């Protein structure tokens, strides 16, 4: 019944286009927006599976307070996607449950 969880680019912002890599696909983003915003615009419908019961979660507050948008960004796990701006070539992945202890910078 319902369509995909996605946001449209209703207002044109004249910032540069950048490409970021999300789980083996390349997606388009606009400079100056956060990873979370870019994912919403690309219809990526969840950002993590919880370490407690494996539930899917997606950006909720967009201001860094709910921690639902935890993702792996350039190999650093559990970063808040709504607090980090996109950069050309950035590699972003979902978190599936708890992080690995030796993933690091």
């Amino acid at each position, binding site marked *: 019944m319902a369509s995909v969880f996605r946001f449209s680019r209703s207002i044109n912002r004249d910032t540069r286009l950048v490409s970021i890599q999300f789980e083996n696909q390349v997606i388009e983003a606009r400079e100056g927006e956060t990873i979370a915003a870019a994912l919403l615009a690309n219809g990526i419908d969840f950002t993590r599976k919880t*370490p*407690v019961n494996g539930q899917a979660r997606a950006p909720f507050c967009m201001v860094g307070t709910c921690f639902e948008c935890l993702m792996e960004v350039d190999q*650093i796990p*559990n970063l808040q996607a709504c607090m980090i701006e996109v950069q050309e070539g950035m590699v972003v992945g979902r978190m599936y*449950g*708890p*992080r*690995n*202890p*030796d*993933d*690091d*910078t």
Partner: protein
Amino acid sequence: MESEFAIVGGGILGISIAWGLQRIGRDVMVIDEGDFAFRASRGNFGLVWVQGKGDGLPDYTRWTLRSASLWPDFADELEDTTGIKLELSQPGGIDFCLSNDEAENAVARLSGIRDSLSIDYPFEYIENTELRKLTPEIGPDVVGGTYCPKDGHVNPLYLLRALYTDFQSRGGRVVNGVSVDKIKQENSGFRLSGGVEMFAQKVVLCAGLGNRKLGEMVGLNVPVEPNRGQIMICERVIPFMRYPSVQIRQVGEGAVQIGDSKENVGFDDRTSPEVISRIARRAIKIYPLLSHLRTIRTWAALRVMSPDGFPIYQQSDAHPGAYVVTCHSGITLAAIHALVLTRWIGGEDQPKNLESFSGKRFSI
């Protein structure tokens, strides 16, 4: 409110004693303070720890060893009756040494304890390269560590919840939000008050740091002092740490818990950034991969310390029927408190060498 036994204090000690008494058929009520009270039980590290315990009092080493061996059955029983998993694991534990001095001291202390005992006291010192085989993630700053196969850990919060659940389903009563400020002996028992009036034939003081004042009311000398411990907890990670240690353990749900300082700062349970920073540095030296983990919370709790660090178990001479039970290691000793000590309080039989733990040792 009336009952045969009133337990003052609903921390891990109080509820262990209450549960044990209820289990042998006594009628018990637990009286506890409100939400913001100083609580060692809710801020502690969760170790079931044998290594190093009892330096200077062999009876305490024996007592601790016995509790550690009672733990598996104790946990099984609670898990069966409540369905709450306690996450007990006793794979042995390591005390890491970051310098040769630390290593020498640790070995000297453990050898001293072993020599004072007639029973088997297993431990070994393992150097870095060998230790690496047990726990490959340690860093180069670790000189070695002492390993004791009897050590382990448990989820102290689930333990508390399981004891409360089972105690109440066996008919035990909990009076919450009441701070007992008066205890008076009357002909057949004790009248307790603190906003409400309660009566019990016997009273057991398990009020942690509150025991000092309450003890005076029933002729018991309980010279306990607060000792602050700061702890931090990091985000959940996939299980990797095989052995708990005094400073670091990975808890059941995957979070890594790091502690703990020992500070004499009175009734101050705030954390301080300097101490937390120092704890973090030591932890990273032991397990360098921890440096990338995020700390979710830090907290501090007050240990309940007697002058020599050993428990106080005593019945009042002046007011028979009034008991005090206090100790620092309430998690480790939960099994023996619940299963053995309650037999003495309940009037069934007295464990050997109980006098070693009398508070009279401080009155000389």
